């Protein structure tokens, strides 16, 4: 299994300088896949515990930030006896190049996975030029 060879523990998000959050909750850095396709770039992030109401995708200048707030669901009248993973919010930022059409970015969430589609500007879409044998 591919997962076995990779680091699978949740990573805590890095904070710039010594800036801290006001909330005491933990902040994790979600694992992402970024795929470049012909007409767009797709960003997929694992953010379990997040739904369409608790996720935010923002674009400020050339920085795309994904943020998800997790309301931990604790089974009533139960106590935690063993914990292999932590629960907290998610945040991660990426710098985008100019080739993205900012007005057409679309985001969806399903089963705790965020999917952001970043369409390329018409002009930079690669045109395939068929090479003919002489």
């Amino acid at each position, binding site marked *: *299994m*591919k*997962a*076995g060879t*990779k680091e*699978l*523990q949740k990573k805590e998000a890095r904070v710039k300088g010594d800036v801290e959050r006001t909330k005491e909750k933990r902040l994790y850095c979600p*694992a*992402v*896949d*970024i*795929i*470049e*396709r*012909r007409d767009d*770039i*797709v960003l*997929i992030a*694992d*953010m*379990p*515990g*997040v*739904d369409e109401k608790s996720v935010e995708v923002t674009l400020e200048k050339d920085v795309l930030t994904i943020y998800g707030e997790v309301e931990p*669901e*604790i*089974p009533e*009248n*139960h*106590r*935690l*006896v*063993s*914990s*292999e*993973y932590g629960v907290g919010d998610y945040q991660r930022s990426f710098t985008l190049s100019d080739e993205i059409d900012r007005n057409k970015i679309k985001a969806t969430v*399903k*089963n*705790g*996975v965020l999917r952001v589609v970043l369409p390329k500007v018409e002009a930079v879409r690669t045109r395939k030029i068929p090479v003919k044998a002489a």
Partner: protein
Amino acid sequence: MLWRDFDDLNGFWDPWREFEWMRRRLSRLISEPTYDFPPVNIWVSDDDTVVTTEIPGIDPRDVDISVTGRTLTIRGSRKSEELKEEDSYHRRERWSGRFSKAIELPFNIEADKVSARFTKGILYITLPKAEAERPRKIEIKSE
């Protein structure tokens, strides 16, 4: 409460304390805490245990939960993205493939009454204790 006090006394046998101790000892052997995938959190009450795990993006139909005696087994798989020939990865950090994990609880499970729920990428499995192992309240009759 009287029973709570007993619980906190040293030497009172708590199966969960032993469970945690065993796990720590096992992970110390491997120097780093390496848990098999997926990581789980375990919650208990007098009557049942709730096992939770984060498996986002999975189709619940691709998850198989089975219970025998004291052991819970979770199996499943997550497919990787389907890429066309011209597509390429900039980053590939998300896991994919098959997983299998067995958890042994310190009591027998009432297999018929196990229930599971999958929401926002988190799986919740409720495992009731076998009837014979539940704590019983004994009424004291006054004469």
